[in-house]
């Protein structure tokens, strides 16, 4: 027990090393937050283009572009995409690394969100679509008022899962020397030469965040399920 307390003091209190974790956590949350927004927006747009194409045969060119995007992003590792974004695409410009990470993670997440949302849209019975159109609503109005709210409810668990995956995946941000939570823990390890305390703490912080997120999503799901209650 005394050993643990010593370990704790050495890793976190000495030289204010806890700041590595706190600042790292801030960076992790920052990247995750904005990447989720980019991913959601991008994903929705791509999903709508793809399902409009599937339903009506319109938007051929856009659909082709979206397909290339999905194939490339889902076919290559996240870390490689991050490295390419930083060292190749923004290689010759001096740019904030966190911004690069937000962009890379957002674009990556968008591909997964797109397929999740599209599956949700396609899962809604065509009769819903016909009912909307038969009342005189346009394709767009039918999508926005009738199809997407139902699709959203269907895919919410999968979307939440994607958020959780993204949160954890930002731990590779260290590859472009961003000091996120994981990197923060690793810096402490490299200074104190004790691996257990900093790494376990980092893991615990991720776990708590994921559990909180899971809990919140469960609450939201129960609220959305109101209309299913018999």
């Amino acid at each position: 027990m005394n050993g643990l307390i010593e370990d704790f003091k050495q890793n976190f209190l000495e030289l204010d090393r806890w700041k590595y974790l706190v600042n790292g956590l801030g960076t992790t949350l920052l990247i995750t937050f904005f990447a989720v927004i980019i991913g959601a927006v991008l994903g929705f747009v791509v999903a709508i283009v793809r399902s409009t194409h599937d339903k009506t045969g319109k938007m051929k060119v856009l659909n082709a572009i979206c397909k290339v995007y999905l194939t490339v992003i889902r076919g290559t590792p996240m870390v490689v995409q991050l490295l390419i974004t930083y060292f190749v695409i923004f290689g010759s410009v001096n740019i904030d690394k966190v911004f690069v990470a937000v962009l890379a993670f957002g674009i990556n997440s968008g591909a997964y969100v797109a397929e999740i949302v599209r599956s949700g849209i396609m899962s809604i019975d065509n009769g819903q679509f016909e009912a909307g159109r038969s009342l005189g609503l346009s394709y767009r109005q039918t999508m926005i008022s009738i199809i997407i709210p139902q699709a959203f409810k269907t895919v919410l668990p999968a979307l939440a899962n994607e958020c959780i995956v993204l949160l954890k995946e930002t731990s590779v941000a260290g590859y472009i020397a961003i000091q996120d939570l994981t990197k923060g823990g690793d810096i402490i390890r490299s200074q104190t030469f004790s691996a257990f305390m900093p790494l376990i703490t980092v893991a615990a912080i991720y776990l708590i965040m994921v559990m909180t997120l899971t809990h919140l999503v469960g609450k939201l799901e129960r609220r959305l399920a109101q209309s299913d209650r018999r």
Partner: protein
Amino acid sequence: MIDVKHLCKSFAEVEVLKDINETIEQGEKVVIVGPSGSGKSTFLRCLNLMEKPTSGDIIFEGKNITQASEHEMNKLRQRMGMVFQHFNLFPHLTIKRNITLAPVKLGLMTQAEADAKAEELLERVGLPDKANEYPSRLSGGQKQRIAIARSLAMNPDVMLFDEPTSALDPEMVGEVLELMKQLAEDGMTMVVVTHEMGFAREVASRVMFMADGRILEQNEPKEFFANPQNQRLKDFLSKII
């Protein structure tokens, strides 16, 4: 009110409607019967362009709608209510919102006006206490009555019914037919695809028999059932009555 000229419809290679020519006047209650696969639902769905005709013209209220733009199509559908076999209520919205969604979204009524209209319609279909329920809590018959109310909220000039009682448990068929009968008595122009011969006999101003993508015979109901001419119709009637 609706003029159909040389209407043909094919799905891939299959010819479902073969050169249909028909006129439906204001106030008529046309009931379409026939064996399954005869094209009756497709014919009905062509009338409000749920299916795009392969060739031919449909003239609705003096306007050829087969060439209608997206915008014109939405406008004309506002004047043609449609009731589906599987109700297709919006499960994520309350009954009231199901009814008010389209009139409000299309800018025809304010939310308050639509709410008042919804209450009036719920009264009319006999479900005034269901306004704030979700569709999942209703029986099939109740759902279909709400679906009818939802269509009526648009003040349509004609109502299209696509086998409105086929998905219902037998004990719920009556309540829906009763409502449709009231609607007919109020003077609504109706085109009804159904297997309910009793309804056809009692409510129709004209009964049509379709088979193999053609209208083979039509008559006012009494003659239609008592004195069928076409052999296919004779066979059909002998099987179901």
